[in-house]
């Protein structure tokens, strides 16, 4: 009765049962009737002598604990433990030497576990602070990696096509000194120097072009032209001009990053409102003062846009340019030679390094942007 008063829209059915959980439990129950996998030529069921029932009991306990938790969030954490246990089961079975490719019972069970994870994420994404901004994306990424690992190993995908993440991690660890040398050559030497030169030149030419209108008129069409030049066309020419070492990579990066920076800076400098400029004029502020105190702060969101676009362009440019000649070190060199030798683990490890570097670079710029342009409408109150 009191429940009806506080929440008149609640129906008795809804309060009686958690239908979402029931919808997840049904495929999980059905899965128990189907096989887990094949061991030594014999089909193995759920209760055929493996450790599977122990995992099953753990999952059920976690879900029951979750459903009866006094707070929905605590329940979500308990259910998350259940999801983790469910996904550990195929990894355990693989280590036991089972062939899972025909284990439809297991796969159906994992589908139910994924639905449970969906439910958990829905609750966690509604939480404030770190849970939403760090834990949820972290769990998402981890889920993708575990899914990749289990599917690739479970269905025995050849490693030459797609190795599981564990194998890529092993290759990373085994080849760490080589990969570090590649990283130093490509990222710390070529990319950073080329990036600073390209963005710096783009920025300074934009300041000049803003002062001298004919420069802007002449340069902007060239910008469209330059952005249409393929890297694979410009890279061999730069290698011929500047040699095998970092200078040719930096030159490719300068060509790729100069115009995005120029165009974004020019757009940013034109972003100040008339009324703000009039204000500076009424203070008898000259060109330099107006630039530093008004126009550059106003241009910051545009500058960061250019810097972020260029961070990924620079890495791509350096790696592709290394295909056309390099000292025997560098990420592009590593990829091109190890592909030829069919050492795809190292290729994947290099790709992982490049991906982490690229997102780290971008992420650092995004953090810097958030700090320096917290005032901008797109950044406020986050």
């Amino acid at each position, binding site marked *: 009765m009191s429940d009806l008063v506080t929440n008149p829209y609640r129906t008795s059915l809804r309060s009686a049962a958690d239908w979402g959980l029931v919808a997840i439990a049904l495929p999980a129950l059905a899965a128990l009737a189907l096989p887990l996998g094949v061991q030594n030529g014999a089909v193995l069921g759920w209760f055929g002598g493996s450790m599977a029932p122990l995992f099953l009991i753990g999952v059920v306990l976690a879900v029951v604990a979750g459903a009866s938790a006094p707070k929905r969030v605590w329940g979500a954490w308990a259910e998350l433990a259940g999801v983790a246990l469910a996904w550990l089961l195929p990894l355990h079975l693989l280590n036991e030497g089972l062939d899972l490719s025909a284990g439809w019972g297991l796969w159906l069970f994992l589908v139910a576990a994924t639905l449970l994870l969906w439910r958990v994420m829905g609750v966690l994404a509604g939480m404030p602070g770190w849970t939403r901004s760090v834990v949820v994306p972290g769990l998402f990424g981890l889920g993708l990696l575990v899914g990749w690992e289990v599917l690739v190993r479970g269905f025995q995908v050849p490693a030459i096509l797609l190795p599981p993440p564990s194998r890529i991690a092993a290759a990373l660890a085994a080849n760490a000194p080589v990969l570090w040398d590649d990283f130093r050559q490509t990222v710390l030497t070529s990319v950073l120097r080329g990036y600073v030169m390209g963005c710096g030149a783009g920025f300074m030419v934009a300041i000049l072009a803003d002062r001298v209108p004919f420069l802007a008129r002449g340069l902007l069409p060239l910008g469209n032209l330059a952005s249409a030049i393929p890297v694979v066309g410009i890279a061999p020419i730069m290698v011929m001009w500047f040699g095998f070492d970092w200078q040719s990579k930096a030159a490719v990066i300068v060509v790729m990053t100069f115009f995005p920076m120029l165009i974004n800076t020019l757009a940013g400098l034109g972003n100040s*409102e008339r*009324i*703000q400029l*009039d*204000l*500076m*004029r*009424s*203070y*008898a*502020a000259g060109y330099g*003062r107006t630039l530093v*105190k*008004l126009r550059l*702060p106003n241009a*910051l969101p545009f500058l960061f846009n250019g810097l972020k676009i260029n961070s990924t362009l620079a890495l791509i440019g350096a790696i592709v340019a290394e295909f056309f000649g390099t000292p025997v070190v560098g990420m592009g060199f590593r990829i091109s030679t190890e592909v030829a030798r069919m050492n795809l683990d190292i290729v994947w490890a290099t790709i992982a390094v490049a991906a982490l570097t690229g997102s780290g670079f971008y992420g650092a710029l995004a953090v810097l942007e958030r700090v320096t*342009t917290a*005032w*901008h*409408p797109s950044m*406020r109150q986050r």
Partner: protein
Amino acid sequence: MTFPNPLDVREATASRQGSDRAASSAKSSVVVEARKLSLVYPTADKPVTALSEVDLTIARGDFVSLIGPSGCGKTTLLRVIADLERPTSGHIVIEGMTPEQARLKRLYGYVFQAPALYPWRTVERNVMLPLEIMGIARAERQARAREQLERVGLSGFERKFPWQLSGGMQQRVSIARALALQPDLLLMDEPFGALDEITRDHLNLHLTQLWRATGKTCVFVTHSIAEAVFLSTRIVVMSPRPGRILDVIDCDSLPRERKLEIRESPEFAAIAHRVREGLKEGHSYDD
């Protein structure tokens, strides 16, 4: 057309004919003097005359309102005084100087239609902006900014960002910023045009108290008759196409100290009536 006060007629005619009287008397008492001021904008089809042969004299300590419908050149006239626009013909003198010299000497403070605060600066640093440009030392800058913020009733908001303040508060910050320059001449272009009437009444009261306390010369652009009569010692009625002055009305019949109650007085009604008549005249000419 009847004028309630013969004194006003004399003054208006004198202003219209070019204020030689004011110019010949005491030079230092005249802050702004414009003669036969015209400004023509070239546009694609035909040139637009924003100001046509405007004569105007503004005395020290006056609160002058420029009122008229949109397109009558009231903002343009203010921008010419501020050297944000250049007239195509005629003369204008600010404190014995050209507008450009006056601007370079930072003789005026300008309050725009919008607050025009810089969102990346705190309230206090916004008020300090003109002082930074003038090269005033940090401690002095801060002291002056605090003083002006207190004057507009915004003590305690120094560390806030403009977008955390209401529209009325933002406009008060922009007034504090103009006052921080310590100018003798305050130019205001419809500063309260975007605000609701309650906030506007409040800020009008604030402004008139500020004006009396500081003794500054104010030029105030508005399209509200009540606001113009309430604030001004003189009202300049303007008319569009081409922008020109129709009438200059003295508000001597109102006390120098303005309280919101004076809006109920017959003197207030009489002046408001005359302003309305003047605006009507401008429109009938147009139709």
